[in-house]
Every structure is written in C-alpha cells, then in structure tokens.
C-alpha cells in the first residue's frame, strides 16, 4: 500500500485539528439527536451547525488577533475585557432609545468603539514592547482595569439597544448564512494576505522564535510587537460589536467574560505553539470551531454553561501536555519499549 500520501496528510498542520473536529461531529451524530438537521426558514439556514458558526464568530475573531500575538511568544488575556469596552462604547453612543433612533449615527458609533479597542490594544503593545513587561502581566492589567472601564462607560448598567440596523451585524443573514461569518472570513483573508503574501508573517514568526536574532537581522521587533497587540485589540473590538449586536445589549460585567480562555484554546488547538514561532490562522479557525462545537455539545447534554468551564480547563491541560516535549519524550519512551519487546 502506498503510504506516502498518508504521511503527507499527517504532516499537514491542519490534519489533527480537523480529526478532532470530525471526532466531535461523529460523537454528536451518535449521541445528540437532530444535531445535523438543517432547515430553511425565511430564506436562511437553521440548525445546530449554523448555530456553531454564528456563536463561534466572536471567538474566531478574537482568535485571529491572538494567533499573531501568540506567534510573537506573547499572550493577550485582556481580549474579553476589550470586548466589553467595545460593546459598552458602541451601546452608549447608539443609546437605549426605545424607538430605535440612534443618538449618533451607527457607523460613527462603531468606528468609535473600534478606535477605543485599538487604543486598548496599543496600550498593551506599549507595555510589552516599550516598557518590557511580561505579556501576561501587561494584559492582566487591562483584563481587570478594562472591566472597570467598561463598567464606568456604561455607568454600571446594562444598556439595551433598539436600533434596528445595528442588529444585522450579529443577527443578519446573507445568502442563507449568518452575516458575522462573512466578517470572520473577510478578516481572515485580509490577515492571511498581509502575513503570507508579504514578509510580515515571516517577521512575526522570527520575532517569536528569537527576538534578539530578529533584531540583528534588521527587523524592528519593538514596533512589530506593538502593532500586533494593537491588531489584537482591533479584532477584540470587532468581536465586541458582533457580541453587542447579537444580544442587543451591553453588559460591562458579563460581556466577554472567559472569552480569552476560549480564544487561547482555539489558537492552541489549531496547532500554534505557546512558545512562539510558527502560526496557523486557518488552524485557529478550526480550533475555534472545535471549541464552539464542544460548548454546543456540552449544552446539548443539559450541562449548565458555567460547568462547561471545567471541561474546557481539562482540555487546555491535556493540550498543554501534548505540546510538552517532556511529556512526548516520556510517552514515546514507553512506546519505544513496547516496540522493542514486540
């Protein structure tokens, strides 16, 4: 039998994430009734699979920015709070008018939210690249202070929105598919072009592998890191807009709580190593789908969303173990012995 294609397939970075996704789907095929049922209502598709795409969109958006941050050997755990800030800003500017008349034009409100998010990202970038703080601590500051900022923006109240056009972002459909998935697709395409068709991706990877060597070879690592964090802020901002539009409210206290965990999980599941270097955008998207499918599966079994955290934490531990060379050495040692005995 010709095994060459099989080896090539296995070497593909997307192989394992896709296997994991297929495995989850297979599980649902047998254990969750009607998981794959699709219907067409009012001209768009309905069903669990569409829900996974729709609900996964905010995490996918976060994962795009986070992939690049993790590739530079950094981390951004403030994304959940930035989601809350973005949602808070856009909600305050559109205003909770019951007739749905926006206080300021919707595009301006959205632009303001995105600018606020980019500023948040730039703040992170400045702390990491200019002051030299560890990324965890730098972004931990915004994780906590950011929630405070979101609460102060919304006056510690939940703002409900009634402006109809704004719903399209998170609830609208285009050609039968949720609109938010097109935003994800567009941003992935843009990021992929910018990183793979220019040297930018190579620069990011080299900074992640060895910042000193990258600097000596003429890459301005400081600026690069700065802008990567700013980009992560932008992604979180877009994600915040989608979240706000989906639920048509901004809750500074609960919007985006725990999103950083899902997004990190998505990136790591997609094959990007926490140790920096190589990154896989499409892998991260598959990772986000795995996370969302996992969440949907857990909910389908009637487990409260809060408890789903336990399962996700376990998955993170297992994935970290699989990425650890010590663990693999231990494992292959066992495997090797067994082969010797046979």
């Amino acid at each position, binding site marked *: 039998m010709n095994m060459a294609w099989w080896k090539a397939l296995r070497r593909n970075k997307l192989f394992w994430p896709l296997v994991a996704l297929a495995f989850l789907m297979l599980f649902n095929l047998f254990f969750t009734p009607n998981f794959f049922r699709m219907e067409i209502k009012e001209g768009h598709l309905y069903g669990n699979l569409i829900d996974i795409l729709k609900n996964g969109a905010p995490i996918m958006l976060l994962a795009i920015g986070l992939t690049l941050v993790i590739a530079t050997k950094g*981390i951004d*755990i403030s994304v959940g709070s930035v989601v809350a800030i973005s949602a808070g800003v856009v909600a305050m500017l559109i205003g909770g008018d019951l007739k749905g008349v926006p206080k300021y034009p919707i595009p301006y409100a959205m632009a303001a939210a995105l600018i606020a998010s980019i500023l948040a990202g730039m703040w992170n970038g400045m*702390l990491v690249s200019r*002051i*030299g*703080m*560890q990324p*965890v*601590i*730098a972004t*931990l*500051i*915004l*994780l*906590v*202070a*950011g*929630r*405070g*900022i979101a*609460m*102060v923006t919304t*006056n*510690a109240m939940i703002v409900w929105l009634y402006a109809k056009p704004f719903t399209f972002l998170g609830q609208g459909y285009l050609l039968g598919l949720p609109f938010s998935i097109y935003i994800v697709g567009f941003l992935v395409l843009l990021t992929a072009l910018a990183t793979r068709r220019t040297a930018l991706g190579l620069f990011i990877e080299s900074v992640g592998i060895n910042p000193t060597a990258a600097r000596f070879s003429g890459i301005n690592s400081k600026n690069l890191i700065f802008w990567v964090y700013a980009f992560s802020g932008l992604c979180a901002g877009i994600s915040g807009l989608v979240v706000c539009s989906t639920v048509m409210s901004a809750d500074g206290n609960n919007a985006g709580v*725990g999103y950083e*965990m899902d997004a*990190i999980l998505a990136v790591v599941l997609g094959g990007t190593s*926490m140790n920096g270097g190589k990154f896989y955008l499409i892998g991260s998207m598959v990772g986000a789908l795995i996370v969302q499918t996992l969440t949907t599966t857990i909910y389908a079994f009637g487990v*409260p969303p*809060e*408890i*789903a*955290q*336990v*399962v*996700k*934490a*376990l998955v*993170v*531990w297992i994935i*970290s*173990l699989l990425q*650890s*060379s*010590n*663990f693999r050495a231990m494992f292959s040692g066992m495997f090797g012995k067994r082969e010797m005995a046979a």
Partner: protein
Amino acid sequence: MKKRSIINPRDIPMLVTLALFTIMFGVGAASFRGFLSLQNFYNLFIDNAYLIIIAVGMTLVIISGGIDLSVGSMLALSTMLTSSLLEKSHWDPIAVIPTVLFVGAAMGFFMGYLIQVFNLPPFIITLAGLYFARGLCYVVSIDTIGITNEFWQKAASAQINVIGNNFISSSVIIALVVLVVGIFVSRSTKFGRTIFAIGGNEQSAILMGLPVARTKIILYSVSGFCAALAGIVFTLYTQSGYALNGRGMEMDAIAAVVIGGTLLTGGVGSILGTLFGVFVFGTIQLLIAFQGTLNSWWTRIGIGFLVFAFCLLQRILESRKIGRSMKRVPAKPEPVVSKG
C-alpha cells in the same frame, strides 16, 4: 571610592510603597472626618485579611519567577466547599477546615506538578486552573449558601479588643499568623533561600544542587493552601459561599505583591512589602468608600494604574542597575565571526 548609600536599592520600591501608603492615609485623614482612627487602621486588616493570606502565597510564587492566576477561583471554591459541607452535609467544623485546606493544597500540587515536570508555562496552567475551580463552584451549587453553623457564627462575630475599644476580628489573627510564618520561612529557612535562588536564576539553582523541582511544586501547593485558607476566612467575613466570590482577586493579589516591591521577573521581593501593598489597596477602597459618590469600579481602574506605575518603577530601577554593571565591564564581547 563612592560612598555607599544607607538605603539598599532593593528596598526602594518597598519604601516608596510605605511612603505612598502614608500619604494616601494622610490625604484621607485630612479630607474626611473620622478617617484617622486606630479602628480605621484595624479595618484595613479586618477587610483585607483574606487578601493578605492569598498575597503571602502569591509573593512566594512570584519570587520564584512563577505566577498563580487560580487563587481567586480557588478562594471561591473554598467558600463553596466550606458552606456546602457545613450546611448541606452537616459536617463538623473540625473536619471541614482540614478537608477544604487539603483540596486547595492538592489543586496547587497538581498544577505545580504539571508546570515543573512537563516544563509548561505557569500562567496557562493556572489560567486553566482558574476556570476549572470556578466551574467546580457551580458543580457544588449555583446559588448562594448561607452559613448558620454555630461555631462559624461565633468565630465570625468574635471581636478582640486591642488598645481601648478598638477591636480586631478572628480572621485578622489568622492573617497575622500566616504573615509571620511567611516572613520567617522566606527569610530564615533553607526553603526560603531556595525560592530566591530559583527566581534569580533557575539554571544556577539546579547547578548549585538545590532541590528546585521539589521547591517549585511545594510553592504552588502552598499558594493553593493559602487560597483555600483565604476562602475560609472569607466565609467568616461574609458568612456564605457564592460561586462568584473573588472574581478578579488574582489581580488584587498580584497588584499587592507588585506594589509591595516584588519583582515580577523573580528573585527579589519581600512579604512585608506585600503587606504594605495590601494596605495601599485597602486605603484606595477606604478612600472611595469615604468619598461616597465615585463608582466602586474606579477601584479596579486605580489598581490597574498602580500596577502599571510600579512595574514602570521596577523597569527603571532595573535598567539603571544594568546600566551600572555595563559601565563596570567596559569590554564588549567578541563578535562571532564564522570562518570558512
């Protein structure tokens, strides 16, 4: 010869903290009636006893160059376990306390084991621990569980008079004991010196033959233990268990540690400094409470800003130190030229 300064440069951040605390307390005393009293100072201890306990464990972990993000959820899990075991399972308090403490230490041990043996980044492992413990809280119960146990209520309402009519609570005593033990262990034991050595340079510590692996795993267990103990103290404070307790408390603890002059890169720090850090944190809350009109969320923003300011101070002190050592060794390393 340059005259050596009387103050050890390492103590500068701690002294800055002490000065900051004095100024902030002074501002409070000048602006609000009834702010300057012994009882108000004791209140810093009473209201922040749990934070002191968590921060002691966190200081040790950070000195070793690690981090533990799971402490806030661990505190919540501990309050849930305590209240559930007391009220739903009707256990005796004598059995509840060791069980809860054991769970905390075991959780810390597990994470420390993963971090050390498999060489995994501490923040990702403890971040997962954060969600794991928080999720387990909801497994115990979604609702608040009030504690009506007699022993617990007595311990919670106990007031011990110190100097006149001013009192402290039983949780303050626990916090002080943890503080004293922490200071003793970090300053005067082999274990403590090993922690500093690991934080200074882990490779050298290994080459010196220090028990690095064992110490690191014990450290995370200690941090888990402290978080569980803080949870018990927290139930004394609120007389209930609730799954959302202590959200974001890992940041409060890290803030107190950083403000207290411990370097986030490890190797330098003190538990006494952390105590001053907690004081600064508590004074901000007191000021906002006395002021009365500000949104309490400003505390979060204020803490974030202080952490930023102190990290900046640390970086400046560090770069000055590096600058000085560069002057002492003027010779540049030979550039590596590949031949052939």
